């Protein structure tokens, strides 16, 4: 029964496909998988937007949307209908073809990543040997799309926003890649399914998730920071920093094209958090051995939503960085640390089992963190201050 519940979607898909002639079965199975991805994540997007608005509200001592439908759950749908029926404005001097293509490229690029994400046991669209590489290759195209959006609008704020976005995304892509490489080094595979199954083991009741190793923890932090920056979320939301450059690269977008950017951002958030979950948080595996009876897909999606909650939490709390600080942070803090993390991951293997590797690896990372942190603070001359009073 537990097994069946775990595999319920797989079985359902098989059952549905069973009605078709044999020659079409495989293709139909794929189509079902794709349809699920294309329908599920937008639905999750709606949920996440609502969660964000309500969660932010709660952090700010208010309710958030609660009138459209019961508890406000229909709010995203209303937003969707509104966006759909809004007039579409393309500035006269804009490059209309590129202006039109940009949101579509954003959406497509952010959806493609899901192809290799295992969303549960046996629930992956394609299990490729070079899955992780594929994921990053797809992620790389988003940068171009953002540039297209900002450039084609021919608006100063858009262009500034696009340049910021591209600079930011390329800067954080390197640590993103490097922190994943550490995982690959230990797992020995680029296939995300294999990475999950490598973590799906338990010592006592505790799982073998990579986040519970020194290099994994540090890698996860680097990954989380880079993720936030890659998806342009607060505190790295400079490309759309409204206090400076109005709405950034989508200043000139209206109607559903804007909604597509919005959707693209969230879908990218899902996919990149899904990847993070897979790489460091054991993917669909249960957090304790005695919880394995809960279906794997529940674990995957709860981890996904949890990371979305963290995004929301960060957004509710933190101010925005400045462009130079953002770049400095990427190149002078995150990148060196993730390089050191690679070294630590290698050491982890060479030091073999035993407590030594824990102490050693943690010590290296901690020292590096403190050193780099001090460096960072010193280079910007910041710190707490005291004040004097006059009578």
């Amino acid at each position, binding site marked *: 029964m537990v097994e069946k519940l775990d595999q319920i979607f797989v079985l359902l898909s098989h059952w549905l496909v069973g009605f078709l002639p044999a020659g079409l079965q495989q293709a139909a199975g794929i189509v079902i998988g794709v349809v699920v991805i294309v329908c599920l994540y937008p639905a999750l997007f709606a949920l996440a937007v609502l969660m964000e608005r309500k969660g*932010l509200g709660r*952090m*700010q*001592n*208010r309710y958030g949307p609660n009138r459209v439908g019961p508890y406000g759950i229909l709010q995203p749908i209303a937003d969707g209908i509104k966006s759909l029926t809004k007039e579409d404005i393309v500035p006269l001097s804009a490059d209309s073809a590129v202006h039109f293509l940009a949101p579509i490229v954003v959406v497509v690029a952010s959806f493609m990543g899901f192809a290799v994400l295992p969303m549960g046991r046996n629930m992956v669209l394609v299990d490729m040997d070079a899955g992780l590489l594929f994921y990053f290759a797809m992620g790389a195209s988003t940068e171009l799309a953002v540039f297209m959006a900002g450039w084609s609008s021919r608006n*100063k*704020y858009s262009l*500034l926003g696009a340049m*910021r976005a591209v600079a930011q995304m390329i800067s954080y892509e390197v640590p993103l890649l490097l922190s994943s490489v550490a995982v690959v080094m230990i797992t020995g595979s680029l296939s995300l399914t294999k990475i999950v199954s490598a973590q799906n083991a338990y010592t006592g009741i505790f799982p073998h998730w990579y986040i519970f190793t020194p290099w994994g923890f540090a890698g996860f932090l680097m990954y989380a920071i880079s993720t936030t920056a890659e998806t342009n979320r*607060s*505190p790295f*939301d*400079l490309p759309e*920093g*409204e*206090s*400076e*450059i*109005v709405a950034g690269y989508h200043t000139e977008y209206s109607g559903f094209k804007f909604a597509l950017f919005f959707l693209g951002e969230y879908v990218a958030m899902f996919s990149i958090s899904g990847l993070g979950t897979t790489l460091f948080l054991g993917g669909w595996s249960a957090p304790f051995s005695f919880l394995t009876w809960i279906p794997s897909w529940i674990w995957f999606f709860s981890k996904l939503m949890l990371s979305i909650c963290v995004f929301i939490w960060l*957004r*509710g*709390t*933190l*101010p*925005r*960085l*400045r*462009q*130079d*600080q953002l770049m400095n942070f990427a190149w002078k803090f995150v990148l060196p640390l993730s390089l050191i993390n690679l070294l630590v991951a290698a050491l982890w293997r060479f030091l073999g089992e035993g407590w030594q590797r824990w102490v050693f690896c943690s010590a290296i990372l901690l020292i590096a963190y403190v050193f780099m942190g001090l460096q960072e*603070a010193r280079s*910007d*001359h*910041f*710190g*707490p*201050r005291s*004040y*004097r*009073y*006059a*009578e």
Partner: protein
Amino acid sequence: MTKIGTKLGFGRKKKPEGWNRPPVIEQTSEGELLEVAMGPHHPSTHGVFRMNLALDGERVIRLKPEFGYLHRNHEKLGEGQSYLASMPYTDRLDYLCSLTNNWAYALAVEKLTGQQVPERAEYLRVILSELTRFQNHAGTIGFLMQDMGCSGTPLMYAFREREKILDLFEELTGSRMMCNYMRFGGCRVDATPAWLDATRKVVAGLPAFLDEFEALLRSNEILMARTQGVGILPPDLAVNAGITGPLLRASGVNYDIRKVDHYGIYDRFNFKVPLGDHGDVYDRFMIRMLEMRESLKILDQALKEIPGGPVVDPKAKIRGFRPKPGEAYGRIESPKGELGFYLISDGGPNPYRYRVRPPSLINLTVLEDMSLGQNVADVVLILGSVDIVMGEVDR
């Protein structure tokens, strides 16, 4: 000028003649200048202010402020109507702090006529203006954080407390923002004991809010990185450019009109003036934070000591108010700086000349000096830290 911080080039060197022009930044990288208008509709300009920027990449090479988008002819209207009728208009000058505006105007008129103010009214004025200062500073910090990209959380907390204070205002004066409370020679209505109790209760709850605010912001690394060393205003320039209020004190100049003029009854209260050593955005943020604490001290004392008695000079007239010919300049320490009113009376029912000395406008004089060479994102912060209200800037 007392001791001035020496860090970050805070010397007292006398600069050569003509030093007070903004420096001209030579363009260093080869990119073309991007001419951007920020405002009049821009999320960061706190209303309808406009800055014409020339950017080299993201660096500000030139900045020209442009005003007048909210020029409501306040002074002209003031000359066309009676002294009393201008009182509600002063509410709309700096619309975040109507009560201090009221006070400044009342003070100027009282100087013009030589009227006396009963003691209870003085206490009420102090209480209300310190509450005003508190809510203004909290709001300013909230807006500053909003400019920094905080998604509204600090602003919401600030407004949560502001609502409590506004409720007090409304209970006493009848309106949340446009109080129109002070009169020449006193205040319009008396505060009930219930109101004073409510105020005591609210004031008792405010330190907790400040603690929360400080926990949220004071040691936040991003905030420190964003604000420290940004928009430095040297004290010499600050004094020469007529900068007043928290902006001046953040630059280390000890000048608080409450201490200098002892207007009202401020000499009876025990409070201090916090001073900054760096004159940057962080100092301005912190000076406001600390001034809020000092305001709470004053409030505690004033609420404890408030005497009974009338709240308005019984000789004061509402109708047929005609000051003798003459002129007067009255000023107070408003939350934004020195708010002054200059009145010339020709003996008629209307002032012959009615002039507002707007701290916000004059504090903007140095905006260009503080912003040149900084990042465009910093300009937003610098503007936010100056704390302008367009109603007062343009009048």
